[in-house]
């Protein structure tokens, strides 16, 4: 039986890729952000996952509006990064785990989640940056299963539906017969808005309440509609839906191993958390 040993949630701003490429981790602008990650790496060294289930949103690299999924699951043997339009350096390919992917797809469809299966998929910064933050040598020691959530094109899945998807993912993983350790990552957010007269919107109060809810009241955000979440966290802050999926894979009671919150990187309030199932 596979076991979810914990979840890591983190922001995924493209500029982080540039900072990594230029080695700016100790630069005063970047240090408060990068300093969040050594504790996560220590934790990963301890829990030694074989598999990362990566919950993120595609930013218009693999999906376009001709075929825009609500939820998509990767089922490829390998996932490559690609040029997203800004010349962020691409990273080494990621190993997939098609057997586990198909197991998850089967269980999710059985559970009445109408997912898209993707046997070929390129992954963008929302997938690659959290991996690079966790494993800076970029020798990925895990196999991966991408879970893509639509945060781009309204209607978005509700926070409640995302949380339930997390619950269903947990059931699927628990029924995987191999004795393997799984870390679920949820990437994106926290509050930020790139577009419109409200560009630059950040809501520290909401973010801190949201991060607290991850520990103490996991369904808290499900009381908001996605439009209300845009109002509270910005047009891109709504990427926190990926956090809801990741949180939904853990039991109600969790232990916070670590967290960090910093304003701003680029236009974004960045947050990260390491959560474990409570013993």
């Amino acid at each position, binding site marked *: 039986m596979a076991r979810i040993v914990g979840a890591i949630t983190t922001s995924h701003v493209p500029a982080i890729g540039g900072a990594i490429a230029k080695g700016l981790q100790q630069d005063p602008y970047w240090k408060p952000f990068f300093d969040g990650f050594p504790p996560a790496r220590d934790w990963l060294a301890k829990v030694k996952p074989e598999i990362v289930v990566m919950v993120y949103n595609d930013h*218009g690299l693999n999906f376009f509006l001709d075929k825009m999924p609500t939820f998509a699951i990767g089922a490829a043997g390998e996932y490559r990064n690609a040029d997203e339009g800004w010349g962020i350096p691409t990273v080494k390919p990621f190993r997939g785990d098609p057997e586990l992917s198909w197991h998850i797809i089967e269980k999710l469809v059985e559970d009445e989640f109408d997912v898209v299966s993707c046997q070929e998929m390129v992954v963008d910064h929302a997938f690659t940056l959290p991996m690079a933050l966790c494993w800076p040598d970029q020798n990925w020691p895990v196999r991966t299963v991408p879970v893509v959530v639509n945060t781009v094109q*309204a209607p978005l899945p509700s926070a409640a539906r995302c949380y339930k998807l997390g619950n269903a993912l947990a059931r699927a993983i628990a029924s995987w017969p191999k004795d393997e350790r799984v870390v679920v990552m949820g990437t994106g957010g926290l509050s930020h808005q790139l577009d419109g007269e409200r560009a630059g919107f950040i809501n520290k109060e909401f973010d801190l309440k949201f991060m607290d809810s991850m520990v103490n009241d996991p369904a808290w955000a499900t009381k908001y509609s996605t439009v209300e979440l845009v*109002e509270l966290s910005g047009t891109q802050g709504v990427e926190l839906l990926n956090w809801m999926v990741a949180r939904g894979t853990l039991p109600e009671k969790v232990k916070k191993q670590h967290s960090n919150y910093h*304003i*701003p990187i680029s236009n974004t309030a960045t947050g990260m958390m390491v959560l474990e199932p409570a013993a």
Partner: protein
Amino acid sequence: MPNAKPRQPVPGTTIFDGEQARKGYALNKMCYSFNDAANRAAFVANEDAYCAKYGLNAQQREAIRNRNVLQLIEAGGNAYYLAKFAGIFGLDMQDIGAQQTGMTKDEFKAKLLAAAR
């Protein structure tokens, strides 16, 4: 009265819904093509021809010509695809933010920092 809700209830914000997606389809499709470096080069080499190939309407063409993000959103552009257009000119998200809010980049950065307090 379920339709009494305004379609765009958040001030200063255009939620990218079906109506925006319809309006902006050609524009976003062009921007999506900028994932590919060869397409970015083709746009730079002949902007008119490239926009014509994707069938941009006059409003979209004008907004592209002006490199004006608010106009691009008005014409149906989506932030995630428009970011690839901005990338051609080496603009970062703070340049974009400053442009849309009518601030200098330093003013915009100060605004972001203020949110930390």
